[in-house]
C-alpha cells in the first residue's frame, strides 16, 4: 500500500468516527432539536393529551402540561375555551381521584352538559372567593395541595401581576396540577411565567382558531384550527330553513320595534306575534312533556 492511499484510508476512518460521534451526540437526551418537537419531549415528560392531534403534535409532552401553568387568552367569552379543555378534563376527572377546581367562573358551569360530555361532576369544586387576593390564595392553595388534578381560574386581570403567575407556576409544579388561567386578549401583550400560552379566536361555528404564543422548546405558532365541536359531539349543522326563519324573525323584530314606537299599531302586534314562532314549532313537534 502506498503511503498516499494509506493516508486517505486513515482520513476516511477518522471521518466516519467523527460522524459516528456526531450521531451519538445528537441522541443525547438533553439535546433538543427543533425538528423533533413531539417525540423527544414526550419521553421526558408526558402531558395530558388534549384530544386534538393537531395540537398534541405542537405541544411539549404531547399535551397540556400535567404540572404547570397554562394561559388561554380569549377574544370573548364562550368561543370554545371549555370545549378545548373537555377531552383533557374528561380524562382527568375519570382517571384521577382529585378535584377539578373552578375558581371564579364567569358563568354557571352547566352540570348536565358537563356530565353529557363525560366529565365526572362529583369531582368539580366551584370556588367563588370574595376578593382578588382570596382568589389568588385559593388558586395557589388548590395547586399546591396536590389534591386537584386541574384548576381553572378567572382572575381579575387588572390586579394580576407577573410575580403571581410565577408563584402559580411553582405551585402547579409542586402539586402536579394542570393550572389554567383564562385571560382576555389584551393579556397577550403582557409577559407571563406560564409555560404555555395560547390565544383563542372564534372561527366558523364548531371550530376555534388558536395561536401558540409560548411553549417549551418551540417557536410561537399561528393559526391552528381545531374542530372543538366534533371532539365533544356538539356539532351543529347550519340549516337552510332556519336561515329563512331568522330573516323572518329579524323582520318581525324591526317591525315590532316600529309598532311599539307607533301607538296606533300596538293593537295589531299581539295578533301577528304568535304566528311566526309557533307555526314552525308545531310543524316539527319536539315537545318535552314531563
Amino acid at each position, binding site marked *: 500500500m502506498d503511503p498516499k492511499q494509506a493516508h486517505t484510508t486513515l482520513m476516511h476512518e477518522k471521518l466516519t468516527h467523527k460522524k459516528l460521534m456526531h450521531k451519538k451526540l445528537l441522541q443525547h437526551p438533553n439535546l433538543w432539536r427543533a425538528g423533533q418537537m413531539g417525540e423527544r419531549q414526550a419521553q421526558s415528560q408526558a402531558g395530558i393529551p388534549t384530544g386534538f392531534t393537531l395540537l398534541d403534535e405542537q405541544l411539549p409532552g404531547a399535551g397540556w402540561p400535567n404540572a404547570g401553568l397554562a394561559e388561554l387568552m380569549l*377574544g*370573548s*367569552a*364562550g*368561543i*370554545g375555551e*371549555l*370545549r378545548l379543555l373537555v377531552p383533557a378534563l374528561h380524562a382527568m376527572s375519570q382517571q384521577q*381521584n*382529585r*378535584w377539578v377546581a373552578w375558581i371564579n367562573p*364567569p*358563568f*354557571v*358551569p*352547566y*352540570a*348536565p*352538559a*358537563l*356530565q*353529557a360530555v363525560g366529565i365526572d*361532576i*362529583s369531582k368539580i*369544586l*366551584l*370556588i367563588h*372567593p*370574595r376578593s382578588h387576593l*382570596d382568589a389568588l*390564595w*385559593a388558586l395557589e392553595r*388548590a395547586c399546591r*395541595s*396536590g*389534591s386537584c388534578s386541574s384548576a381553572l381560574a378567572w382572575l381579575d386581570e387588572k390586579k394580576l401581576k407577573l410575580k403571581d403567575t410565577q408563584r402559580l407556576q411553582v405551585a402547579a409544579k409542586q402539586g*402536579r396540577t394542570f393550572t389554567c388561567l383564562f385571560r382576555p386578549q389584551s393579556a397577550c401583550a403582557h409577559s407571563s411565567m406560564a409555560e404555555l400560552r395560547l390565544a383563542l*379566536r*372564534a*372561527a366558523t*361555528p364548531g371550530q376555534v382558531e388558536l395561536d401558540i404564543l409560548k411553549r417549551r422548546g418551540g417557536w410561537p405558532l399561528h393559526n391552528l384550527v381545531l374542530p372543538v365541536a366534533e371532539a365533544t*359531539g*356538539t356539532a*351543529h*349543522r*347550519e*340549516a337552510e330553513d*332556519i336561515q329563512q*326563519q*331568522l330573516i323572518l*324573525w*329579524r323582520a318581525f*323584530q324591526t317591525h*315590532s320595534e316600529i309598532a311599539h314606537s307607533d301607538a296606533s299599531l300596538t293593537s295589531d302586534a299581539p295578533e301577528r306575534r*304568535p304566528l*311566526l*314562532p309557533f307555526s314552525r314549532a308545531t310543524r*316539527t313537534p*319536539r315537545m*318535552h312533556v314531563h
Partner: protein
Amino acid sequence: MFWLALHFPRLPLEVCSPGDPQQAMVVLDENRVFLCNLAAQAHGIELGATLATAHSIHPGVKHKHRDLEAESQRLHALADTLYRFSGHVSVQAPDCVLLEIGGSLKLFHSHQALSEAAIDLCQTLGHQSIARVAATPWAAIALARSGRQQLEDVALSEAGLELAGVADDVVERFANMGIYTLGPLLNLPSKSLGRRFGKALLKYLAQLTGDLHDPRKARTPSSAFDQTQHLLAPICDKNDLHEHDASPMAVLARALQQWLITRQLGCERLQWQFLSHNAEKACLPVHFAKGKQSAADFMRISRLKLEQAALPEEVLSVGLSAKRLQPWAGASHGLFRSTDHASHDDASSSDLNELIDEFNARLGEGCCRGLRITPQHAPENTWQTLRAHHMSRKPAPRHAGFEAEFLQSLSKRPLWLFDPPRQVSVAELNLLHGPERIQTQWWQGSTACRDYYIAQHRLGAECWAFVDSEAQWYLHGYFG
C-alpha cells in the same frame, strides 16, 4: 384489684395557663403561700410565707388565689382523659385520680409501663404527676401523695386521714404520742385505737390494709367536651393565642385530641370562645368535612379562621367545645406511602377534604361548592350546587333509569349557563340549529314556553338562545 393513684402536686399552679417560666409566681391559700413555681423557689420564697414576705423577698412576684373549683374541673377532665387506661376511674379530691388497673395489665404488660404511659400523657397536657401502685385505693393514694415506696414511711399528714373523716387534731395527738408515719400506727392494737380515736380511723385503717372492702364509684366519662383556659395576663395579639406550644389554643386543642382518642371519636364541628374583661364574647365555629382527631388539624384550620375573625381587644379566657362528634373512621395508608410514586395522581380522601376545610375556613362557608344534577325539566333547574361537605360524604343520588335517557336529551346543551338568561337582540344572532321547544311547569300554572335555538353570536361565541312567547330573545348559555 390493683390500684394506680396519680397525684398532681402542682395542680393549683397548673390550672392557670403557663405563662413565662421565668416569672416568679405563687398561689395563695388563706393568705399564705400555698405553692410557688420554680422561679419563685429560686428567689427563696418559702411555702407558708405571707404575701408581704414574698413581696419583700422578690418584688416582682405575681400571685393568684387558689381556685378550688377550677382545680376540681381540671381534675375531672384529667380523669376523663385517663379513662383510656382503665374502665374504672375515680377522682379523689383535691389532687388525686384513682385507676383500677388490674384489668388493664395484660394490655400494657406491666404496671410500670402503664404508669409511665399515664405520666407521659399528663405531661403532654401540662401536668406534673406522681404515680403509685398499691393493692388498695387508700394505700395507692397515700403512697402517691407522699411520693414514697413503702407504706410504713408515709407521714400521717399525707396519708389522707382528713379525707377518711378523721379530724386534723387526731394527727396532732398521734404526733404527741410519737407516731409520725403509718407504719407504727398500723402496729397498734386496733381495739384500743378504736376506743380512743373513733370508728372512722378504724375503718380507714382497715380499708388501707385491705381488711375492709373499699368500693369506689367509677366515673362515667362526660359525653361533651367543653374546656376553658383562663389567662393570667390578657392577650392582645392574635398570634399569641395560637403560635407557640404553650399558647392557650394549642393547649386546648391537645386536650381535645386526647379526649377524642379516648372515646374513638372524630370532631366535625368545634367552637372557640374568646372572652374579655367586660364579658365581651366572640365565638369562632370551625367546621371539618370529615371528623378530625389531631390537634395539628384543629389548629391549622382554626388559624385560617382566626385571621378573618374579629376578637375582643383583650382576651382573658379561651374556651373550646366540641359541637358535633362522629365515630372515628381511621384511614389505612401504605407502609411506604411517601415514596410511592404510582399513587401520585390519587390523593387520599382525607387530603381532598382538607382542601375543602381550608377553603371554608379562609373564604367563609358556602364559598366552596359542588355540582349536582337534579331531575327537573326546566333547563335552569336541572343543576344544583351543594355544600362541598355534603358532596364528599354521600355521592349524588343516582336515578339509573332516568339518567341515561335524561343525559341523552342533554347532548345539545351548553357548557356555560347564564343564570338568569340575558336579553339579546335577534340581530346579534345567526341561527344554526333548532328549534327545540321546552315548555316548563305547565302543571304548576306558570307556563313558560320557549323555543330554543343554537346560534352564533356576533362576537363569535356559539350560544344557546331562546325566544319566549312574548317574542323576546334571550341568551341562555354559551357552548364554551
